[in-house]
């Protein structure tokens, strides 16, 4: 009875100290466990993002590196014709971009959506988006990223080189009706493509 009625605080002080020690120890142990677990689960997603983006970059690089285009317009017509076209699955993209620059645009921008046809593979790999930019010298830069959180990013840089000194070359010619007209020609090759990491 005396003990129960005692107002000495030593016991509760020790109990609080013990509780505090346990709480700190518990928090440290849980924090270590949770952070390790979180880091590991995010690692697999990051690895997949790396493979999705670099795979797309390699395919784009092999589809563009070494491609040539030889195009011309006749007179004041904006209709671009070809002596030779790119031999690539990305032919339409390369031609549309080149035609825009050839017609006088300073830059050309497009967005490429890259994904596998198989849905089961696609659900693991995710969709990769490529931001394509072509400058006035026909150099191409494609920045790739996936739809994963904190996605890996890389850039495919494909320099263009003018061939036979034909960058908007003006050739005077006579058409079938005997009229003098001018043919404007550009011939180029994309080569020396590189993949760079984007931070």
């Amino acid at each position: 009875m005396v003990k129960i009625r005692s107002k000495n605080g030593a016991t509760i002080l020790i109990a609080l100290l013990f509780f505090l020690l346990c709480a700190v120890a518990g928090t440290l142990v849980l924090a270590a466990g949770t952070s390790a677990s979180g880091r590991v689960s995010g690692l697999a997603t990051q690895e997949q993002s790396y493979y999705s983006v670099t795979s797309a970059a390699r395919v784009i690089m092999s589809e563009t590196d070494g491609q040539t285009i030889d195009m011309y317009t006749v007179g004041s017509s904006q209709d671009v014709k070809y002596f030779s076209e790119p031999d690539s699955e990305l032919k339409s993209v390369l031609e549309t971009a080149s035609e825009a620059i050839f017609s006088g645009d300073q830059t050309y921008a497009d967005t490429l959506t890259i994904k596998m046809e198989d849905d089961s593979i696609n659900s693991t790999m995710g969709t990769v988006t490529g931001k394509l930019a072509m400058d006035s010298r026909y150099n191409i830069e494609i920045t790739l990223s996936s739809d994963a959180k904190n996605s890996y990013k890389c850039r495919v840089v494909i320099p263009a080189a003018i061939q036979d000194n034909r960058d908007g070359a003006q050739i005077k010619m006579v058409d079938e009706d005997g009229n003098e007209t001018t043919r404007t020609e550009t011939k180029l090759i994309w080569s020396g493509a590189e993949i760079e990491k984007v931070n």
Partner: protein
Amino acid sequence: MIKKSIKEKLSNRNGESLAEVMVAILVIAVGLVLLSSLVIASSRLVDKGGKKMHAIYTASSAMETHDTSMSNEQLDIVSDKVTKNATAIIPVKAYKYTNNGLSVKLISYTE
């Protein structure tokens, strides 16, 4: 005042009642059980994390050497601006590594 009280308690030769000792043991036991279960659960978590990390590195290594299952697939590249033949369909080889036990799955492809 507090120092004096603790000193008195330490030099006090009076014992505690059985009920008080049992309650104290109960409190300590509950505390120890909670702490030990915390340590065991966390240790399992860390162990599982280590295994998963090892599986991811194994998967990554297999992807680099293409020591995985391979299948012929098709890749679609769709342009936003191109109007004619906007979708390029490219045949690719897909390399797939799966570890079902640890839910690790990595896929890459090349032309």
